[in-house]
């Protein structure tokens, strides 16, 4: 990222129109940003990156409009969210033909687009021309169709939108499972049967690895081994599969293969009501459910134009920072697990986590799946008892824990031996791959959304953006440690200044009126930039509901990080990237 001054939007539009006459036009109401002509997209993106300072491609999302929605003709649309070092998004819309959707790939300009374009191909069937490796990413080969298309219906399809009237015939609940028993709720592509299907090397991701394995060093012929790590492996933190080509124990090529936990969260979200989606967001990154609610309610609040009461904002910050602390503590603990200190550090972290979960239980009523935030506030007020516990944790207990971890690990010779210089991510590469969170800041890029594009009331707090210069696993550990300290600083300020007042704007309502439009809400979640892109057509359900999951996008750089390292380093690198599979696979 460069430090150019952000141009004014109007100025930006004129410059773009001067440079690319006829290719760029402002998006009509209720959309934001620009509409870019399909064939000039790569040029426009290169121009924006190199000359306008929009160096960070955060989000790529495809939307299907089979009919006229919000006053625009039927089309496929790909939406890009670009960012400068500070400030809000520049939204680019690219329209594609409904019958044969083809869009030029942006991978050559922003490597960050690689995984997201594969996702858009997988779920929507939008073909990206020039993509180096356009395969399915979340679904498997025996899946029929592209599920996020509006005309794609599941086998046990009932209705387009919830609540389904078929679930309550004459007031008695009927489970969907009883209507579509197991075995008949599957559909394969025409002419495809699981019995006859033999996975080709290509389909299972072996082809590129075989090619690497065949390359021989003429001076000393060495056989290479293709090794599968996962989906069942103690250190992949879930059902992640890493396909590695080894020479000896050294990684020649490594590729994450995803989708083992895929549940088509976004399709579920489109069927749900606006409010009904909040508990589903808890299940994304199940370690930190509080921060999962937040960007969603932020995005919808932007559409609705609701003002959040001050006390509710403070409570959101308190919960968010506790969640960040919890996540980083557990992450450091699990990293030590992967290093071989089985459970010792991890259990110390989980002990603190228990106290934080107690606090969540006191306020939200649930320990892990909090379902706490609402459009316009939070679900329940913090009691005095909860505030007391929060104060004790933030002022007494948790600082001690951070100091303890610092004392045990930071200067530990063995810990340093295993983490220093492992998985080095240069800053320019981190930005190009769209990395965010501690992974980005561990490479020395001081990009924190709480500072760069403040949401909620973060501009009122005094805290530092922690960075570490080396970009290795140790730097990322240092960033996490520093961020735990900064979280405590924010918590202490927030708890000292916690105002009285309501925690919810307006009255609680079961049905919501969300005006038509699009909105991208993003926060600095513990694992990185968590963004929710929602489109409303004014109805009771989101028209499009997309999650920019930091774990998913941070995994895109995994292959680069691991190249040339040993198998033993892979688990450390993966732990330092810090992923949750619930969020990766959605």
């Amino acid at each position, binding site marked *: *990222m460069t*430090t150019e001054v952000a141009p004014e939007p109007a100025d930006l539009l004129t410059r773009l129109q001067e440079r690319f006459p006829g290719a760029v036009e402002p998006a009509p109401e209720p959309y934001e940003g620009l509409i870019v002509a399909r064939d000039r997209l790569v040029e426009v993106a290169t121009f924006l990156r190199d000359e306008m300072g929009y160096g960070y491609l955060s989000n790529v999302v495809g939307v299907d409009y089979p009919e006229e929605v919000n006053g625009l003709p039927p089309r496929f649309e790909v939406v890009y969210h670009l960012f400068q*070092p500070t400030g809000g998004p520049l939204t680019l819309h690219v329209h594609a033909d409904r019958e044969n959707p083809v869009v030029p790939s942006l991978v050559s300009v922003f490597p960050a687009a690689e995984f997201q374009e594969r996702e858009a191909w997988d779920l929507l069937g939008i073909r990206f021309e020039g993509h180096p490796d356009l395969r399915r990413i979340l679904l498997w080969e025996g899946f029929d169709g592209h599920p996020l298309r509006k005309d794609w219906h599941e086998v046990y399809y009932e209705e387009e939108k919830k609540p389904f009237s078929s679930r309550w015939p004459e007031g008695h609940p009927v489970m969907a499972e009883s209507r579509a028993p197991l075995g008949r709720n599957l559909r394969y592509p025409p002419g495809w049967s699981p019995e006859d299907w033999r996975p080709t090397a290509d389909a299972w991701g072996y082809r590129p690895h075989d090619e690497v394995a065949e390359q021989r060093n003429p001076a000393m012929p060495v056989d290479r*081994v293709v*090794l599968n790590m996962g989906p069942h*492996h*103690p*250190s992949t933190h879930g059902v992640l599969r890493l396909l590695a080509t080894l020479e000896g*124990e050294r990684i020649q090529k490594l590729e994450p293969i995803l989708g083992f936990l895929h549940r088509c969260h976004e399709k579920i979200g489109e069927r749900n009501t606006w409010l009904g989606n909040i508990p589903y967001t808890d299940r994304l990154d199940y370690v930190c459910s509080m921060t999962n609610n937040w960007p969603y309610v932020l995005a919808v609040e932007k559409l609705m134009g609701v003002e959040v009461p001050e006390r509710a904002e403070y409570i959101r910050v308190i919960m968010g920072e506790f969640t960040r602390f919890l996540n980083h503590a557990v992450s450091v603990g699990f990293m*030590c*697990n*992967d*290093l*071989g*200190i*089985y*459970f*010792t550090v991890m*259990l*110390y972290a989980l*002990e603190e986590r228990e106290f934080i979960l107690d606090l969540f239980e006191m306020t939200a009523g649930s320990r892990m799946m909090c379902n706490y935030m609402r459009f316009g506030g939070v679900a329940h007020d913090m009691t005095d008892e909860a505030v007391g516990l929060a104060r004790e944790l933030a002022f007494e207990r948790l600082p001690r824990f951070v100091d303890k971890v610092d004392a045990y690990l930071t200067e*530990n010779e*063995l*810990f340093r*031996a*295993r983490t220093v210089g492992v998985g080095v991510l*240069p*800053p*320019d590469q981190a930005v190009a791959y769209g990395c965010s969170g501690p992974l980005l800041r561990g490479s*020395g*890029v*001081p*990009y924190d959304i709480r500072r*760069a594009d403040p949401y909620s009331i973060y501009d009122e707090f005094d805290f530092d953006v922690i960075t570490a*210069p080396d970009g290795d696993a140790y730097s990322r550990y240092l960033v996490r440690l520093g961020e735990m300290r900064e979280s405590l600083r924010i918590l202490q300020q927030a708890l000292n200044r916690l105002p009285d007042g309501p925690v919810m704007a307006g009255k609680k309502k079961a049905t919501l009126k969300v005006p038509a439009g699009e909105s991208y809400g993003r926060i600095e979640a513990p694992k990185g930039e968590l963004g929710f892109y929602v489109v409303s057509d004014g109805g009771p359900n989101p028209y499009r509901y997309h999650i920019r999951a930091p774990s998913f996008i941070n995994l895109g750089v995994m292959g680069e990080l691991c190249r040339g390292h*040993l*198998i*033993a*380093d*892979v*688990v450390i690198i993966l732990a330092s990237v810090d992923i949750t599979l619930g969020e990766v696979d959605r």
Partner: protein
Amino acid sequence: MESLSRFLAFLADAIVNIGDWIRGLLLGAGLVDPWVSLIMKAIGALVVAFFPLMVVVFLIWAYRKVAARMQGRLGPNSSGTWAGPYGILQTFADAIKMLTKEDIRPQGIDLIPYNLAPILVVFASIATWAVMPFGPRLIGSDLNIGIFYILAFSSAALVVFLMAGWSSNNKYATVGAFRSVAQLIGYEIPQLLAVLTVVMVTGSLRMQEIVGQQEIPLLFQLPVTAFIFFLASMAEVNARPFELLEAESELVCGYFIEYSGMKFGMFYLGEFMNSTAVAALFATLFLGGWRGPWVEQAPILGTVWFLLKMGLMLLLWMFIQITFPRLRIDQMLAFNWKFLVPLALANLCVIGLVNKGITEWFPGGVSTWTRAGILLMTNVGIFLATWGILAALERREQRRRETWRAAQVGEVEVSA
């Protein structure tokens, strides 16, 4: 009164006396001597073989308990199902569970080596106990090559890892087997050199003789040697900082990944038994084995001292297991070949010269204390020299890193 003193005399060397009593019984029953000796040897072998097994059963419990307490947990206990006071019978429950589990045979295994490996791994660990001196008169067989016998068996046991790793038809197991060769053969060298130093100072390979020479435990005469031996042994038994053969977070279980049920249990057992054997070996070589106060009066106390010293080493082993991260394979090999082997070689040469020098310069012989003092001073010298060399290397490395970083900063100006 007389019966009490006779009882006490019996108790003072109880195990040997029980052995004599059985021998008397057998002779009384009319058996002739070679057969009585054979039967006695068989009983002795059985006892020696069962000893490590019983120790390990409680060691596993103790390990889990200590680990739990260090991690803020309770560990095995009787709060759910009854498992004895403090959960002491948990290991038995686990053993029964393992015995009743299905014996899974993966596809493509090499059946005979696959099934032989778990048996041999326990065999090799038990075999080392044959020459371990439990007391002044208590030893399976006081071979004149005692310590060499132990090292030979632990070295030959390496084949078992290869058998298990290769026959499992699993890439992780193969990588584990490859690592086992690199690690175990590598660390055998400093271990052997450390033992050689001990042998040179005590002048014997016979275990009882090594113990007999230690009026002052060798730990206080040869601390550097003890340090080398300890580190090399940790690597030999695959303990935490060098736990690369199984490396749960990378290789899942290394060479025994495909084993289930009691076959897995055998490897688990073998591992704990090896650790116990190494602790016992350390206690014998460096802590004076069964030597301790009042052993002359009551030889049974020797066994108690021995077990206590062994327990101390095991406790140290546990602490390291629970708190240390694992090294990487290249770091571990570099540590061995670039630090431990040169140090062990230098240590061997210096101690050998000094030891020879003592006998040459004092033809009349010297008191044990003078000798120990000279050896200790030599060790301090070796330690300081090593420290100086390491510090100089570290400083050089630091300078190199700083210039590198300066060059990096000059190249890439990072800001956002």
